[in-house]
């Protein structure tokens, strides 16, 4: 039996989503859990260190470190420049990211997005024009395990140009051996 005879699950192939909207319509995007608000790191802000929280976050500035938003959504805006491992419920990349990305629900790299790193998530969308180098792990179990265990640590060797490693559990899921 071929893998291409069966679907991963019974969900529609690609449901319409506000995260699939083009970058220009970003302002129309409203996170599902707006009750908790959305924080923003502005264009002129530079942060070196680890960011965690329980609200949505939009990064338009520069972040070097890690970002972990349990159960919340993360957007790296068009002006965002992030060198960090990212973990959130839904991750949308309009800007530049060097590091690994875990999206429990979904990861979207839009047409203006540029990612050098590894992506783990059950749903990953690269829009036409997005720039990506690295690996994409779309095994749902990998995403769940990554999110459960990920306290993003050091930023991988994204700048080095080599394909980068994902966390060990994701690697186990994807490995053939």
């Amino acid at each position, binding site marked *: 039996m071929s893998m291409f005879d069966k679907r991963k699950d019974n969900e529609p192939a690609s449901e319409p989503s506000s995260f699939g909207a083009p970058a220009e319509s970003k302002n129309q995007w409203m996170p599902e859990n707006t009750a908790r608000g959305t924080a923003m790191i502005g264009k002129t802000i530079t942060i070196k260190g680890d960011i965690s929280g329980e609200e949505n976050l939009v990064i338009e500035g520069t972040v070097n470190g890690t970002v972990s938003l349990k159960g919340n959504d993360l957007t790296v805006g068009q002006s965002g420049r992030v060198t960090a491992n990212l973990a959130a419920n839904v991750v949308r990349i309009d800007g530049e990211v060097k590091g690994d990305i875990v999206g429990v629900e979904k990861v979207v790299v839009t047409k203006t997005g540029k990612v050098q790193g590894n992506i783990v998530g059950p749903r990953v969308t690269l829009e*036409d024009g997005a*720039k990506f*180098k690295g690996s994409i792990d*779309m*095994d749902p179990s990998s995403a769940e395990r990554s999110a459960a265990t990920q306290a993003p640590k050091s930023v991988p060797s994204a700048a080095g140009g080599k394909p980068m490693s994902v966390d060990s559990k994701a690697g186990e899921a994807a490995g*053939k051996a």
Partner: protein
Amino acid sequence: MKARRGSGDAVAAAPVARRGELRQTLLLPLVFERIDGSQPVNVLDVGSGAAETVSFFSEYRCRLHFADLFEAPGLSLLPEEDADDYFDAVFDAHCSFPEGTLFDICLLWDFLNYLPVPALRAFSRALRPYLHRDTVGHGFGAFKAKATSPAASWAAPNLGMTYAIHDRETLLVRPRLGGAVGEHPHARTVLADAFDCFEIVRGTLLKEGAMELLLQAR
């Protein structure tokens, strides 16, 4: 086996075709038929991440590796001395994957046509640790090296095309943006000898002397 999306999906394909050209592939479906779907599938794409390829695989448990080797600096050079060491270093820098990675599918597109023979051998050495006995590959080569002309539609290296999977039987081919790399189309016999981590198990002659290749790890 049912196609996920029919090749006759002209209405859906039309907007895509404006940004590239849809072309039928004869051997890519065979790649997928050889894969056991009981485990997550590890896929190597030597190109950069293509939206259509990601979308195609998004319905399956899989891990995609986009190596973007077309953009790797130094591949178009052919040093006069120590070519093996030189290309080993190039591929070591751009073709090393997490320990334990074993690819089930290698999508090589027309990358092999860009590599001089020493680079082909180095690529083979670099790739071999990541293959297992059931690894299958797909790519494009030349029936005869001299037959591959700039006008060749499938495998002409100097056209600088990028490839994406539109559906199992159709590829989306676009002009490549960015720097050009060298052109080294190889006859099948040369390719089989130099790129010996794979065996060419089937080749289909295309127009202009290009060949679509189905590969099996050895």
